């Protein structure tokens, strides 16, 4: 199984994401934003960081990068895509996920270990968990407040599109404590917290994050 990790100028968690993919038992494939070549990967991870400096809006310029056109096309055909933090922002900006990420309500960068509840354990990236299971992974963002218009939020809740929710405190003012959402088909998932930083005891608060990366192994096989 080959899982691509895209590096944009300003990505900084791409190596951690590749490491998490390897620990999960898949082969990480390095992808470059300016290419038009997905190198035959089975799934893609968009890593955290500050793509293109986030100068316009977080993730806005990356969402128009050449390789993202290929990611959008393949995602619409069912290829699993996981966006973490900046990657989540890119997926929203690219129109693959609903809503948007804006400045934290308290305007501060917030980094801490964060408790999360898995609300949907039937997506391509969360099947290793149980519905309602709580995990702890780091969160670190300055523009992580998930927003959408009230009617859109109602629609998302009604369709069960909230994949992950903050519990034990909301780090950024995200509406309805939303930490992550999924596409209609459950193949594309975006979340602000960082599961790739919680895959080894030595360097993370837990190994709870590994499940995101092991989940997709089954998802690709069953596709």
């Amino acid at each position: 199984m080959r899982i691509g990790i895209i590096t944009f100028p300003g990505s900084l968690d791409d190596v951690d994401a590749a490491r998490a993919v390897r620990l999960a038992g898949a082969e990480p494939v390095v992808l470059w934003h300016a290419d038009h070549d997905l190198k035959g990967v089975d799934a893609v991870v968009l890593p955290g960081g500050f793509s293109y400096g986030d100068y316009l809006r977080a993730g806005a310029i990356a969402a128009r990068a050449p390789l993202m056109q290929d990611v959008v096309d393949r995602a619409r055909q069912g290829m699993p895509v996981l966006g973490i933090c900046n990657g989540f922002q890119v997926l929203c900006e690219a129109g693959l996920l609903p809503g948007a990420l804006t400045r934290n309500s308290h305007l501060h960068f917030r980094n801490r270990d964060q408790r999360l509840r898995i609300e949907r354990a039937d997506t391509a990236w969360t099947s290793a968990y149980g519905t309602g299971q709580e995990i702890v992974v780091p969160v670190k963002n300055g523009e992580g407040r998930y927003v959408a218009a009230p009617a859109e939020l109602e629609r998302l809740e009604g369709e069960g599109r909230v994949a992950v929710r903050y519990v034990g405190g909301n780090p950024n003012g995200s509406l309805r404590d939303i930490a992550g959402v999924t596409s209609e088909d459950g193949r594309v998932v975006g979340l602000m917290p960082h599961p790739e930083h919680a895959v080894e005891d030595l360097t993370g608060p837990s190994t709870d994050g590994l499940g995101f990366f092991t989940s997709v192994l089954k998802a690709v096989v069953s596709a």
Partner: protein
Amino acid sequence: MPQVVVDVVLKPEISDPQGQAVLGALGRLGHTRVTGVRQGKHFVLDVEGTPSREELEQIAETLLANPVIEDVELHLPEA
């Protein structure tokens, strides 16, 4: 060279913590008659010739603004 101005501001239903921070500062400075602040972005594009409205709308709505959360207003040069 003609200039096109694009103003981008968060939609009214999306809360604007930066605007609220400015409002709080104004209150501390004694400007209590200001009751609301919305912060936005102001783009000035230098363009060659006469750009079509369609192209400018595309520029504004695909890159300069995120229509999911922001309203955008185009100010075209006088014809």
